[in-house]
């Protein structure tokens, strides 16, 4: 009996197997959805997200912004705290982090210094690593939406953080990958075989790659049903005790309502509030990961090269930190970081402003060892605008923008 004859009954059974039919139907459905997407009839866009992370709010706002901002502010929560705290103090009004994406304070300070109107947009997002800054710039800050300048507030943590699994593991990277797959870094940004395999599976199957779309549709439908059942604000505001939210965040992706994170102007009660977050930073810096540092430096270089190539002026700002925070870093890390960013700026004709100057930022301007408080935010932009104006090279760049 030949092999074919042996296999014949099995093949006949296979043709009758309902699991085989289901698999075949799944493949057919996958192909159909890919075709639908190709012809633009897929009902979900990358800006529709089930979980509303800080990058979701910023990207949505940026997309809806009619004019292209002259200056984009980038950086991690260090810059984010300064932007929101600065405006909260300057305008004496609370700022909703999810909805406020510009620095009115910087715009006004620049107007006074340079007698020119500069518009700003803040893409400073919590946890933003150098790799995130690169993918954001590469995918979102392009074409009509390309800014004339980027002020990137950087700190050592943005290049080495023990809490980071891989560049592709951040919410920013994930969100941006939905808008446009950063193909040049898609595989190198994943550092385990399984994360690369998962990425490959996504490339192979449209349905798998578009899981966030289905999750969005499911959330949307659920919200619709719940709204009919009388849940108020189910589509927008969040009414949940913080402890419960925090409990959920241990397992669920980053998600915040527009009313959840609010930065208030300074008050008598908040003036001396300082929380000790050094244990967190000790963990972040606990062991120096050479490979990660080099990897993030390479992303920073890509970011600077991208600016150079596209004619975007990049001003790197070394963010203020407390001495306590710098002291928790591994020996030699801070100096190496400063030298690295200095060398890269020279190489790619970017400008570097060092604002980690304790004389300008005494401890009273900090909310913890790394983040500025509301008054610190105001102080930051005052010092920044002075430095932008006083440094002749940077000032010339600023004037060249307009």
């Amino acid at each position: 009996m030949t092999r074919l004859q042996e296999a014949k009954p099995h093949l006949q059974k296979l043709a009758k197997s309902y699991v085989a039919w289901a698999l075949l139907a799944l493949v057919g459905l996958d192909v159909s959805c890919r075709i639908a997407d190709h012809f633009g009839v897929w009902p979900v866009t990358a800006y529709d997200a089930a979980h509303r992370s800080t990058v979701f709010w910023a990207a949505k706002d940026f997309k809806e912004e009619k004019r292209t901002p002259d200056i984009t502010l980038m950086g991690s929560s260090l810059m984010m705290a300064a932007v929101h705290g600065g405006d909260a103090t300057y305008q004496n009004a609370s700022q909703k982090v999810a909805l406020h994406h510009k620095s009115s304070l910087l715009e006004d300070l620049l107007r006074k210094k340079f007698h020119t109107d500069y518009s700003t947009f803040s893409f400073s997002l919590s946890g933003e690593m150098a790799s995130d800054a690169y993918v954001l710039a590469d995918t979102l800050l392009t074409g009509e939406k390309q800014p004339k300048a980027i002020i990137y507030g950087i700190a050592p943590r943005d290049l080495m953080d023990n809490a980071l699994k891989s560049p592709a593991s951040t919410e920013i990277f994930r969100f941006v990958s939905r808008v446009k797959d950063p193909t040049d870094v898609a595989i190198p940004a994943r550092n385990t075989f399984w994360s690369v395999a998962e990425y490959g599976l996504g490339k192979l199957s449209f349905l798998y790659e578009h899981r966030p779309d289905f999750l969005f549709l499911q959330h949307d439908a659920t919200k619709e049903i719940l709204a009919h059942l009388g849940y108020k604000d189910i589509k927008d505001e969040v009414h949940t005790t913080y402890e419960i939210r925090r409990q959920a965040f241990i397992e669920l992706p980053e998600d915040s309502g527009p009313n959840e994170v609010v930065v208030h102007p300074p008050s008598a009660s908040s003036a001396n509030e300082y929380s000790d977050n050094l244990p967190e930073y000790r963990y972040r810096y606990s062991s120096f990961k050479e490979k990660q540092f080099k990897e993030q430096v390479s992303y920073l270089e890509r970011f600077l090269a991208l600016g150079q190539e596209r004619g975007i002026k990049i001003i790197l700002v070394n963010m203020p930190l407390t001495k306590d925070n710098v002291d928790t870093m591994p020996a030699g890390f801070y100096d190496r970081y400063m030298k690295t960013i200095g060398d890269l700026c020279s190489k790619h004709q970017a400008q570097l402003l060092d604002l980690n100057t304790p004389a300008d930022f005494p401890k009273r301007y900090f909310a913890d060892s790394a983040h500025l408080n509301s008054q610190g935010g105001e102080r930051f932009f005052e010092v920044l605008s002075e430095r932008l104006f006083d440094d002749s090279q940077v000032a010339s760049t600023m004037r060249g923008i307009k």
Partner: protein
Amino acid sequence: MLFNSLQYALFLPLVVALYWLSPQKLRVPILLAASYLFYMSWRPIFILLIFGLTVINYFFGIAISKSENKKKQWLIAATVLNLSTLVYFKYAYFLDDVARTLLKPVFEVPHIPFDIVLPLAISFFVFEFIHYTVDIYRGSAPVKSFLSFALFASFFPTQIAGPIKRFQDFVPQFLNPPKFSIDHFDKGVPLILLGLFKKVLIADNLTFFVQGGFAHPEHFSGLDLWVFAYAFAFQIYFDFSGYTDIARGSANLFGYKVPINFNLPYLASNISDFWHRWHISLSTWLRDYLFIPLGGSRGSNLFTARNLLLTMTLGGLWHGAATHFLVWGIYHGVALVLHREFQKIKKSVSWLAQAVDSLAGKCLSVFLTFHVVLIGWVLFRAETMTSATLILKKMFTLETVQAGAQAVAMYLPSVNYPLIYPSVFLLLPILAVSHLVMGRLDSTDVVKRSPKFLKAAWCLMLMLLIMEFSPDKSPRFIYFQF
């Protein structure tokens, strides 16, 4: 390697392909190698433990079987070794704590000076070894082939959380090896899909809800905590029965059968019935290797009650070295004793028997049994005994909670994110109804007789749901910790 991971999604088809493409004599060794690889994917060093215990129990089996007059000594040696391994890894810290508390006035018991890591699945494979040696002592023939015995103890689909197998049912399947058939896939794949659906779509989503309530009972009212308890009842059922379905489905792909572990437990009409439907392989193990050896029900009422209490207390402790598991076991022991007494009263009071056996009586019995089990789940799930006491107190006093300026009977309806919080009010009734519907379907052969295209559509729907809605971070199966 979790069943609900990409690793398993690649591992399983690879092993299945290798298994069926290999000559028959290589299939058991291939499965054994795959099972050891599966175990090593967690902490490779513990392969020495499972392999070591396998070798020792294999020889104990032979010794018990061949010995003329030292059978009992060999059995005691085997049991002591198996139990001391379990006690060392699982209960050392607990016993150390208990000893320190009890002996504090007279003697300062030191803390255990080194870390003891609990090996995955130890409770399950140790129970299988005990069953093996005891049954040989009782007259069963030992397994001749070491490879078959090793595979019985380490078979990867059931390795981590059962079902606890019986070697007399399982090992003969190696001796009469199954032949390749597409039917194995038609049986196995839908079971795996159903298991994944239960786990990743139902249990995992409920986890996000349940942990909020059990971690912060102080934020919620008595009524809220009832909802959390209901949610946990369904979470643990779908989590564990989902695991079992995946295990059974995976075994089916190789042509093997493993026992069922659940039979619609929340439709049980009394607590004894519940234990015939819940974690069946554990409850039958406890019956055969603990309750019966203790004397079972062959004695006075008090004697039987003692045996029931002891069995369930140890069964509770089997789940974990913590006071709340101990109390959970005692609670079920007491419930079983009370049920026994009730059965006697029922027999002697005819109107009571009629009332209980009527349709309304049966419905009430199911309702009451479910709630007795539910109270038990609070003890089981609470993080500490203090927390369990607080939750139960709030549940039974229907304590209100402060929301803003006023006291409210329920705080949950005002929580609107994460979405599972408001959705749970829709989800729980659906799950309860689906349990009833499943009970109805099980009593008919509707599923078996349904046309193939419907079965294919069912599979497709499960595939799509699992693919699209699996959470990125899926919590581990609850029973993995045991």
